[in-house]
């Protein structure tokens, strides 16, 4: 396999519930 210089950084993903909260809070901010 290809040699990777360094391991990838794991990106923490939000849960579906957290994702929904983010959207509702964004909707409140934008007019």
């Amino acid at each position, binding site marked *: *396999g290809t040699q*990777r210089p360094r*391991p*990838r*950084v794991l990106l923490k993903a939000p849960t579906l519930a957290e*994702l929904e909260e983010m959207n509702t809070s964004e909707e409140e901010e934008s007019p």
Partner: protein
Amino acid sequence: AKEYLGMLQYQREDEARLIQNLILDLKPRGVVVNMMPGLPAHLLLMCVRYADAQNDAAMVRSLMNSTISAIKQVVKEHLEDFEMLSFWLSNTCHFLNCLKQYSGEEEFMKHNSPHQNENCLKNFDLSEYRQILSDVAIRIYHQFIVVMENNIQPIIVPGMLEYESLQGLSGLKPTGFRKRSSSIDDTDAYTMTSVLQQLSYFYSTMCQSGLDAELVRQVAKQLFYLIGAVTLNSLFLRKDMCSCRKGMQIRCNISYLEEWLKDKNLQTSTARGTLEPLSQAAWLLQVKKTTDSDAKEIAEHCPSLSAVQIIKILNSYTPIDDFEKRVTPSFVRKVQALLSGREDSAQLMLDTKYLFPVTFPFSASPHALELLQIPSSFKLGFLRR
């Protein structure tokens, strides 16, 4: 010739416009006809690759969050729209496959070309995002099944049970000379053809939206299970349907469904197996039901029916003419005795709401990212290849 890298460059402030044009406003009709399946998914991946190449975690996270949110939103706004659901189920699965294929994880690189291996993500591991995306795909799949079931359910009993394509046993004429049976003229009653046409519409839509063949097989199995369960449940409740002739009609309809599977190259799917209970019930309606050996034959030939279901059919059996004898209580008792060893459920009715667990097996995409072009109809001119 300019050598492309298989990425799509976008500015942070253009992310909202990208999501709006590529997901929220995209019309499946405009996409499916002449483009490769899962094109939007591949373009999304090319954007992810760009953000990854910038080694900018916030940019990658923002793109993934808004992509998943937008897919959920577009599905939420089209809960009854079969074609839209098919399109976004397909693209969600393609996006999931692309994220795996270009994750750099050995397991998903086996079918990659050397060039595809070079195009793997350099900086970030998105396995947690893949899990979220998989959960979203499962939810879309469940809604997808609900919409199909709502569409086909009203057609099942009229088409599979009530409609008579085989003329009366006594007056069996070659189809060419069939007298125009009144049931078609006055009401637009559904027929077995209506069931097959509905299945074919689902099938062609799934193919046009590039849905993975393995998923199409799972959908076929789920729909066939529903057809079998709804038909059989109705048979249990209607003595008038429990006749030898109706058994023959059901077997005929099952062979139409088998033909349909073969025609769509779906015979390898386990869809046919889900019709086994109905097929055995149809056999039971047709077989002789008088002697001890008949009883033994019945007890051995209906493994997919429970004892309760077998006895119910025997007790409901209604000969349609005077030549045929009713099933005697003593015969029913004989069969019951032979079935006593069974520990199957006491449940009569089949669960029409049962959902087979869905799986999204990985399949690598053959497409070279650097060769993909963006159709102008996507209105993504602000992206740079």
